[in-house]
């Protein structure tokens, strides 16, 4: 049922900045159609068939932040190999390689504007050890949440994560407590907290701050859950139904407010920011 609001949505430009080019292969994994890279970028990496390609951190920042407004914070907080992790690969080597590729940990945090609304923005980057929650990620999130609680600026989080980072052991687990404590303070301070769940969001991230938003939105092709389907099948020998842990499944399960196609996401967020954070209207 299209509402007058849907019209409003379409009037908000789809992307804040110019989306970076991403290598996404030559055919859509869903419909098999050949991909025109330029056109796909214009469509914010959504295929005509509806398939949403995963975006990395820079792409999310370009899509959501108004051009030139992104100001990254705490990019200098760096992880290191606490557990002297060696197998199957040295964790230090993993970190070093990622840094060489220009990746700076699994979470990037800073301030920006979205359709003119100033906010705190954190995005997960699945390329960095599967977007896993690490000490650095937790520290950047907690600092951002604390500053948002103090300043009153809304907090927008974009998730994409396999869970807690094994290579940091129990201290990665502790990040769940650290960030949720900070989310609690954000809520107590009366500051809006919005989450966009993208593919995939699991484990220590879904079970910490990812589902605690005042409004939780999810991309249509996002898989969201606590335990991954592969592990569930291994542990319980269960046949999982079609669509298990899909965004639609989580909508039915009461965990998210709306499933929003990426093409409408910026507009939906702009409206939410207007509704929840315009000081004048309260």
């Amino acid at each position, binding site marked *: 049922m299209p509402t007058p609001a849907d019209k409003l949505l379409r009037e908000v430009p789809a992307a804040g900045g110019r989306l970076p080019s991403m290598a996404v292969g030559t055919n859509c994994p869903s419909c098999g159609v050949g991909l025109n890279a330029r056109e796909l970028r214009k469509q914010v990496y959504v295929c005509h068939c509806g398939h949403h390609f995963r975006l990395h951190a820079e792409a999310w920042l370009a899509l959501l932040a108004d051009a030139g407004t992104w100001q990254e914070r705490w990019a200098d907080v760096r992880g290191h190999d606490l557990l002297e*992790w*060696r197998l199957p690969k040295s964790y230090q080597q993993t970190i070093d390689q990622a840094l060489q590729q220009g990746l700076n940990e699994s979470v990037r945090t800073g301030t920006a504007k979205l359709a003119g609304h100033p906010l705190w923005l954190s995005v997960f980057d699945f390329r960095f050890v599967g977007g896993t929650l690490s000490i650095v990620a937790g520290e950047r999130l907690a600092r951002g949440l604390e500053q948002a609680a103090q300043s009153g600026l809304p907090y927008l989080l974009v998730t994409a994560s396999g869970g807690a980072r094994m290579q940091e*052991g*129990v201290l990665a*687990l502790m990040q769940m407590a650290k960030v949720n404590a*900070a989310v609690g303070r954000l809520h107590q301070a009366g500051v809006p907290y919005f989450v966009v769940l993208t593919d995939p969001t699991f484990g220590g991230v879904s079970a910490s701050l990812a589902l605690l938003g005042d409004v939780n939105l999810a991309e249509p092709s996002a898989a969201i859950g606590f335990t991954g389907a592969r592990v*569930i099948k291994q542990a319980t020998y*269960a046949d999982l139904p079609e669509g298990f842990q899909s965004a639609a499944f989580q909508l039915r399960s009461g965990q998210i407010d709306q499933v929003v196609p990426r093409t409408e996401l910026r507009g939906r967020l702009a409206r939410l920011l207007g509704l929840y954070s315009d000081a004048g209207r309260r």
Partner: protein
Amino acid sequence: MGQPHREQEVEERSNRSLLSVWEVVELARHANRPYSLDFLQRWAPDFIELHGDRLTGDDPALVAGVGTWHDRTVMFMGHQKGRSLADRVSRNWGMMHPEGYRKALRLARQAVKFGFPIVTLIDTPGAYPGASAEERGIASAIGTAIQEWFQIPVPVVCAVIGEGGSGGALGLAVADRVLMLENAIYSVASPESAASIVWRDNSLKVEAAEQLQITSRDLIAMGVVEEIVPEPVGAAHSDHNATARVLGEAIWRNLEPLLKQRPGDLLQHRYERFRYIDSLVTAHPEFGPKVEPRLVS
């Protein structure tokens, strides 16, 4: 054959800290290890179990209720494993569903209403990794629990008594003090899960256990737990009474000073405890389990 002998030998070494990590894992999971109810019945003989999340169900993997301890009413809750096969099934091997975390929160709020301090006992491989848990919102149940435990203005002391696995443990382990029985483990994921996640091969559980740093000595070195509670000769399973006595003394010793703190201070300290729990990392760049653990008396 040889198994009883090996077990005895392990028990002997257990108190000289000469066990391999995997031997500790096996002790933490020992079928005769004392479970939550074994402690509660000894500490508070008048314990009354309370059931239900007041929403959709009751989770037998979490035992919770009130009892008199040190002349006070205390809210106890802990993961509960079963000993017989039927018990194990009905307790779901101590793996909680969403209802368990919601029951815990309901009773934590009740403890706030009455000013009861809270003791939580951790003994779970993790939250239940099954479809029924996913369908009823296990992720948000754990996330909400973790968040709300920071807003429970009564003293909370937690003890890891067996397995402390993953978010399933942490959902019950946000506390002012976290203690750990000597041969308990506490990990970001069970060794099997970690092996499955990192190597996609859960037969590498022993290697994973060694990498993960999950023993009480590792944990205290990282600053994640406050105290290691020694187990009796032959480890916890060989003497439930002695284990309960020593653990009870340690919990009470940690709990008592908290009773005098103002609620606001309590919550602030709890916040800071977890907010800066990784601060040793910055302090010791070559961080590792090299600090000598502090053992009780």
